[in-house]
């Protein structure tokens, strides 16, 4: 089993399964906070997907996208928490 096959048949499917589990929580989530956590985790797993994909295709330039995604995940969570706190004030 080469590294290519290992990542293609084991690592990426595990990440996909965890993405599906989180999607279930995102759709079900009782409060809006759970949905924000699920969204944050989905973007974080996207970074993992990009790392695996850059190993798979031997193209390291995909890692730049991972850096931008990390930035966007942080900014999105901060903005959502800010607006949740402001929403109750009225």
């Amino acid at each position, binding site marked *: 089993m*080469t*590294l290519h096959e*290992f*990542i293609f048949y*084991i*690592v990426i499917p*595990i*990440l996909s*399964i*965890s*993405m599906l*589990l*989180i999607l*279930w*929580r995102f759709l079900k989530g009782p*409060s809006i*906070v*759970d949905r*924000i*956590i*699920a969204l*944050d*985790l989905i973007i*974080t*797993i996207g*970074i*993992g997907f990009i*790392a*695996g994909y*850059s*190993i798979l295709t031997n193209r*390291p330039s995909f*890692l*730049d996208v*991972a*850096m931008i995604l*990390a*930035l966007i*995940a*942080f900014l999105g*969570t*901060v903005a*959502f*928490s*800010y607006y*949740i*706190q402001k*929403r*109750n*004030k009225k």
Partner: protein
Amino acid sequence: MTDILVAIFSLSGAIFILFASIGLIRMPDSYLRISVTTKAATLGIGLLLLAAAIHFQDFSITTRVFAIILFILLTAPISAHLIGRASYFSGVKLWKHSIMNDLEGKYNKATQELKSEDVEELKKRKKKEKDLIKKKPLK
């Protein structure tokens, strides 16, 4: 040799991310979900990125990978704290079996102020000191 190392690191990273997603589903409370996902997902992503760094073995890529890992390590606790704080203030309830609630009775929902007991004690002390100062010149 490097292939085996890359396989081990990427597999353990993927498994930690799977644990994080299982915890997100199984945990009974928003706060517990926050605590689970922050730690496990950060470790998993760090291991996956380290696998990429080991696979390419290039200085510029290793630098990039360590910049991403450092950024995630810095921002994950901050975003978890912010979202936990916002959810506590917006009235998300704790799990019924939770034991500790240190902020109970210290947060005023109408005025959105967070007070500790020490502030009120300090105010009482200052009032006493002022009263003493006022009483002295009279005698």
